[in-house]
């Protein structure tokens, strides 16, 4: 299995799931920390806060660009629920949108 050295940092935003590599990319365990094998175990068994370089299987991490927002495990359910079941705007919201359109786009 292909492996790579990854320098990991404990994330300031959520130490449980996100590890940043030395170039600013993020190493994200698939399915949360439980599925991350060596990387998660290494983090879980460490009390370090300084960067450390470890050797991990590439297949166990997803590398994402630094401007990507990463949702942690406990946020995923609410996110997908909101995404797939958007619901209907309330009458109050519809009225506010109508007032906005009448004020700002009178010709529309």
């Amino acid at each position: 299995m292909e492996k790579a050295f990854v320098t990991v940092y404990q994330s300031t935003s959520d130490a449980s799931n996100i590890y940043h590599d030395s170039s600013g990319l993020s190493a994200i365990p698939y399915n949360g920390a439980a599925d991350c094998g060596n990387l998660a175990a290494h983090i879980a068994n460490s009390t370090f806060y300084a960067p450390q370089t470890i050797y991990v299987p590439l297949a166990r991490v997803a590398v994402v660009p630094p401007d990507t927002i990463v949702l942690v495990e406990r946020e995923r359910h609410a996110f997908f629920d909101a995404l797939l079941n958007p619901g209907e705007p309330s009458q109050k919201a519809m009225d506010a949108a109508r007032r906005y359109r009448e004020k700002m786009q009178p010709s529309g």
Partner: protein
Amino acid sequence: MTPETTPHDFRPLDNNHPRTAFSCGDTALDIYFRTLAGQSGRRRMSVVHVMSNTVTQDVIAYYTLTNASIDAGLLPDVLVKKNRYRPHDTLGVTLLGRFAIDLRYSRGKGWGVHMYMDASYNALLASRIVASCGILLDTETGNARAREFWAGREFVSLGIRNDGKERFFISMDYIQKLHGNA
């Protein structure tokens, strides 16, 4: 003064906006607007939208929009099978990064809702050119007023993060229903 009775407009920040007098009561948001917003726009880090009183030229409020992508881990089957996403695709999202109203414009008069309508309308228009699955924002730690406001706008809380900020999301399908075929 309400949005109904006060002449005003929305337009991207430019050099004609008087920025130094703006004060929303939050130091970070005030400093950003007075000193960093212009640079942020020029560098295309975000677009700063300003609501101005067209009589007095006062800045009433501002908000920022930015494109980003969201990594939510493995996608649900419905997105993978029906919409042909790859299992670990990232999704485009619109960040409502900053949202601030000047203290001179008294609260409870509908300015926040009115500006949210402009922000969501612009996010919807932009999503027809660059895909976005919704609007995402973080409220500051302990800002109960902001939490109440966004929950009242039917944003869904994704929970409170370790740094105390609460993350909210609303889907673009909802925004589409709100504004229709605008």
